[in-house]
């Protein structure tokens, strides 16, 4: 998956992403959060094409940059340090592109070429809907008169209003425990977005269920083979989990830096508060979680890991660790700021809200912990 690059090259790409975040995301992100402004996100995404962000993980033959998943995660970290909501859009986009990269057939080129966003006029963004394990039969793929048709309401998905390619994995009814992956392109009759959930965080990313009203599925848009999508889905879920873990750590990194800076400026109790041991302890705990969290998500991409019992890299568990740590960091960062931390204009409480939503995407922590054991037995 992607080419191997040197640490220098990765640092260079992160630097470019960081500069992009400061120049293009920072100026409007707080206003956009206030207004749940998806138009703002759209504008930033259009701009991001200039540095090749949407095509970052798509092969060069389709017009992408062909970078590795590690690179994708590091870019998430860099972008999320300004706005985790914006980063989450690209996380869903990257994850949505992966099954297409892994698939064969004509759909691969047909979808990846626009999604690389290298020369087309309009912005193309993917999103991902995992197999719904919540409601029985909420999405159904049935064959009618020799044609495949998709019906039902999906669980809430990200990127809904601007997704041009919706990658859906659904449970196969004939083959229990197996999935079929398909990509539904924008403009397909019968596909609409439901009402936005109105989540407390990641507000520039419109999370909503997608409604499929007897949508006719073109056989060519099936990813891989029908009823044989489990392996691809698992890889895709792992990628999404690792990108979200990186985004959580990235945004928590900015909470830490804000708190550290503020502690040096705020005078209380006879000294700058950074001289209080309790504040030092809190900042130290944040730094601990940041460094372990960074290690946890970067290790997921390491090809040669030590073979320690019960410690194989697991994207789901890394996401649990990183998002939980990020939430603790955000809560303490607000606390260090006192009342100011609770006010919108300081941008610290936003991090708490964003991280809480990151924690819930793809299943909350206890669910992931349980299934990490349950699926083995």
């Amino acid at each position, binding site marked *: 998956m992607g080419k191997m690059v040197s640490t220098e090259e990765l640092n260079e790409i992160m630097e470019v992403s960081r500069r992009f975040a400061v120049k293009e995301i920072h100026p409007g992100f707080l206003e956009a959060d206030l207004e749940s402004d998806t138009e703002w996100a759209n504008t930033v995404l259009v701009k991001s094409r200039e540095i090749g962000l949407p095509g970052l993980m798509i092969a060069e033959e389709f017009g992408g940059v062909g970078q590795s998943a590690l690179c994708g995660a590091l870019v998430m970290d860099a972008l999320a340090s300004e706005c985790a909501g914006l980063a989450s859009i690209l996380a869903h986009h990257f994850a949505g592109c992966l099954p297409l990269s892994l698939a064969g057939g004509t759909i691969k080129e047909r979808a990846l070429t626009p999604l690389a966003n290298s020369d087309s006029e309009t912005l193309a963004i993917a999103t991902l809907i995992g197999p719904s394990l919540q409601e029985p039969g909420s999405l159904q793929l049935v064959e009618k008169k020799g044609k495949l048709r998709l019906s039902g309401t999906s669980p809430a998905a990200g990127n809904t209003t601007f997704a041009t390619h919706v990658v859906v994995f659904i449970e196969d009814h004939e083959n229990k425990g197996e999935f079929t992956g398909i990509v539904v392109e924008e403009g397909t009759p019968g596909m609409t977005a439901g009402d936005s*959930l109105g989540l407390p965080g990641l507000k520039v990313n419109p999370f909503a269920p997608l409604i499929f009203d007897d949508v006719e599925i073109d056989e060519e848009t099936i990813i891989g083979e029908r009823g044989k999508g489990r392996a691809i889905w698992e890889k895709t879920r792992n990628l999404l989990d690792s990108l979200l873990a990186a985004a959580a750590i990235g945004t928590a990194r900015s909470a830490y830096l804000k708190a550290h800076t503020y502690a040096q400026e705020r005078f209380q109790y006879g000294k700058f508060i950074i001289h209080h041991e309790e504040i030092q302890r809190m900042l130290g705990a944040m730094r601990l979680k940041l460094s372990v969290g960074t290690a946890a998500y970067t290790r997921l991409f390491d090809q040669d890991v030590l073979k320690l019992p019960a410690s194989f890299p697991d994207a789901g568990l890394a996401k649990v660790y990183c998002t939980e740590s990020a939430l603790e960091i955000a809560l303490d960062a607000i606390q260090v700021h006192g*009342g100011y931390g609770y*006010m919108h204009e300081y941008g610290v409480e936003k991090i708490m809200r964003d991280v809480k939503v990151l924690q819930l995407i793809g299943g909350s922590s206890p669910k992931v912990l349980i299934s990490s054991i349950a699926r083995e037995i």
Partner: protein
Amino acid sequence: MEGMMDYFHLDYGVLADAPDLVEAVPALGKLKAHCPEYIKKAEEDQKLARRFAREEILPRFLDIDAKCSKDPTYIDWDLWRKANKERLTLAFIPEKLGGLGSTSLSAICLMEELAGVCMASAANILFNNFGLLGAMVECRPGILMKIIREMVDAQRREKPLFWAWAITEPSAGTDAEDAHAMASMKPSAHAEKVKGGYRLNGRKCFITNGSIADYVIATLCLDRSSPLESMATFIVPAASQGFSVGKVERKCGQKASQTAELIFEDLFVPEENLWEPPGRGLRHTREILSTTRGYVGVAGLAIARSALERCVQYAYQKRIKEHRLIDEEWVQMAIADMIKDIKTVRAACLNFAIAVDSQHVRQIYDALPVKISLKYLPERFLVSDTLFRLAGSRAFGNMTQNYKSKLITDEVVEKFVKEGSAVKVAGTNLAMQVTSRVLDIVGLEGTAYRYGMEKCFRDAKVTQIYEGSNQANLLDLFHGEIGPKL
């Protein structure tokens, strides 16, 4: 916003019939045997508040939150008027004087029930009582009677009369609440003595109800270089020349409760509006904190409870294949664990409230003259000009102040600051923990705005910050409990 809370089906929590006070803390049963009236009053208040919360707040709190997100100065005055009709806005005023006559215990029930549906709406309805509490703590009968008359008069006419406490300054949070810290405080506001009164200048920030207050009780120092020794307390009518409201803050949560910046520019207050003389300001703040911190603990408890109740209701109706979410073992374990914490903290809160009734400012109602007056004097005499003049007289004032200083000694104040801090930290940490954990149970879809659980999560965080950050509270707890032994 239609169909709000349409997922409430279980006869539990706010939907259940109050009162369940004795059921919640069975030890109260013993107290009920000895003081039936005392527990009965708390049960009545609980019943009233639960009904009000269910019928009036539950159907509209999300709508209010959404409106306040757009416009932080929005207030649902209709809700306030309904609460006023029930005298919830006059909870601490004795019944004979036109209030609800709540004890500290029964007021904690009001708080838990109202904030158990919406913390910010509860703040709008109940926090105003703390202005009165401040006067009661002060025990200056002249001021107290004046306040009571004015509040009762205004609110009988459905005209809100709001108080705000202005302690925090842009440069002083913890520093304004603690003696060691205040000694090195860098004040953002100060007062100077002028002929016939004082001139105030500077800024106060994060003042609850500051933007709608008719009266602001503000602490300001007279000498910026020695704030501790010169801190005084003033009553500032909002109509005073030189008083203005700065920005009303955009907050993460508790949006319906306004938080404002207050600006004093050459604001003159006459001598009689000096509530506490220079050097006594901190003591006054500590007296207030000695009772209010316990209430913030209850606020935290109530937020935790509202989140848990919604989670139970959601998990009860949410179907997953062949079963309900609430049938899953991990969900049951998590819910039980949270109930365990809520029960423990509730017992601590009620314990604190009963202690305020029996050993703190509420003892004043047990003083024989007060007891006899409230029991036997006709209402029209209690609110009469005669009594008003008597209460305002220097002799009567001195008498009650002497009585009060014997009753509420420095030791009592510091003891209750200590106990209140423990309850405050326990309740508010619980709020943050439970509101976050509940979202883990209900997942992304249950975190949608319409279920009201994400609002609990947003509302919770500030409880760990206001009324002294939890860190400041922990310091008070340490210095109160261990400090004297060192």
